[in-house]
């Protein structure tokens, strides 16, 4: 029987992290930011059917970048967990923090114990009843949870996007302004924004039960005019 080679844990973690980071950087970036009446999520997505942004629960949205099958599996698990909690307790008992913690556990477990870590980065966005209670939980490939304020960037060339966005970001901006800022930050100065490749969804602050909705290409291009 052959013995596996000994690999020091530092090296193993470093190599796994590098692997996951490379996988995620291959895809395009996604941003989420507060605007005057909620949270807007904008992703560059050439596909009109394979979504990066979706609804998890009444006030919670999910966004993922990286490997589609991996983050979609996480999305489905989130919808299930949220619907089951709502069934067993009450709709009010489903919250973003709980979901983010569960995601962090799963992704962290996979990073430490699986030979191939998940090549994903996800965001759990929760709309509060006031601006101060909005939540953006950013979960990275190793299970780290970052509680972000005002805006959040996932995947792709996130450092460059961050630099472009942080100068313009304003939580009191209109939806139109917020989408323009997001689109401009995603594209950068050298590349025109193509509305056909933007996937946009919003969580609107209201007393309605389901706060999540998508904007179609027509609505987005009208707003970007």
């Amino acid at each position: 029987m052959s013995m596996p080679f000994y690999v020091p844990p530092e090296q193993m973690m470093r190599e796994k992290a590098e692997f996951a980071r490379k996988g995620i950087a291959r895809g395009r970036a996604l941003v989420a930011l507060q605007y005057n009446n909620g949270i807007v999520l904008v992703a560059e997505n050439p596909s009109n059917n394979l979504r990066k942004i979706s609804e998890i629960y009444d006030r919670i949205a999910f966004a993922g970048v990286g490997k589609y099958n991996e983050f979609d599996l996480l999305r489905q698990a989130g919808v299930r967990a949220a619907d089951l909690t709502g069934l067993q307790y009450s709709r009010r008992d489903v919250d973003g923090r709980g979901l983010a913690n569960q995601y962090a556990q799963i992704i962290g477990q996979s990073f430490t114990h699986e030979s191939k870590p998940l090549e994903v980065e996800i965001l759990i966005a929760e709309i509060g009843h006031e601006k101060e209670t909005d939540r953006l939980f950013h979960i990275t490939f190793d299970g780290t949870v970052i509680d972000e304020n005002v805006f959040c960037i996932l995947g792709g060339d996130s450092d460059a996007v961050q630099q472009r966005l942080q100068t313009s970001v304003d939580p009191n901006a209109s939806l139109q302004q917020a989408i323009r800022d997001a689109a401009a930050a995603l594209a950068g100065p050298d590349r025109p924004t193509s509305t056909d490749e933007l996937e946009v969804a919003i969580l609107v602050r209201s007393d309605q039960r389901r706060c999540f909705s998508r904007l179609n290409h027509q609505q987005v291009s009208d707003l970007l005019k």
Partner: protein
Amino acid sequence: MPIFSPSEDPGSNFNELVKKLGLVPSHTSWSESLSVPHATTCVALRFNEGVLIAGDRRATSGNWISHRGMEKVLQTDDFSAVAISGAAGPAMEMIKMFALILEHYEKMEGRSLSLEGKANQLSMLVRNNLPAAMSGMVVLPLFAGFDEHDSQGRLWDYDATGGRYEEREYVAIGSGSMHAGTVIKVGWRNSLTAQDAVELACRSLWEASEADSATGGPDGLRGVYPIVATIDKSGWHRIEDSELSEIFDSIANEVKSR
């Protein structure tokens, strides 16, 4: 967080997921003498642009009135609603589950079930309730919705075995169904407008409450009126109590002047 291997995955069906995780209560056999609240008369009818669904607010246990404000007509998603008659407890549980199944599917798949698919799913829930129905806990729903594919209102009623019957004109269920159904049968026309349909439904519930002790009439004293809602291409609209109160007043005046 529930994650399954591909062969174990319950898919987008919430009911299957709940079963898989063992969260379904086991079927106990009920004693037939167990007295639980029963919900009563509900009607649905098609009109020119959609479908109307309505129900009274009373629940009874034997000869007792156990609730005066029960909501037996519930919106289950943007374009559909369920009304129930039968044992109130299992019925409310069934509607809650049904609405969750529709929402869960919509979120998992990114699109809604077809109206026919929804009606089929409800039929399975009724059939699952058969053991309880055999010992007296019958739940009979009525399902109405706007079919976006065909651009028309459609409605279904069910029997205790899950049998599913699509109706072309109208349907009435529950203890006052004979009276309510007759009123609608006489007044139904192919060209009814939404307003005509609302008035006809109010009239039918009025007559049912006059003749059947288990059906509640309009209760001006407490401000409790039947639930009347229309579903058309723009979705669900519940008729305001103030509007219902006017309609019932005019019915009362007409009866007085006979």
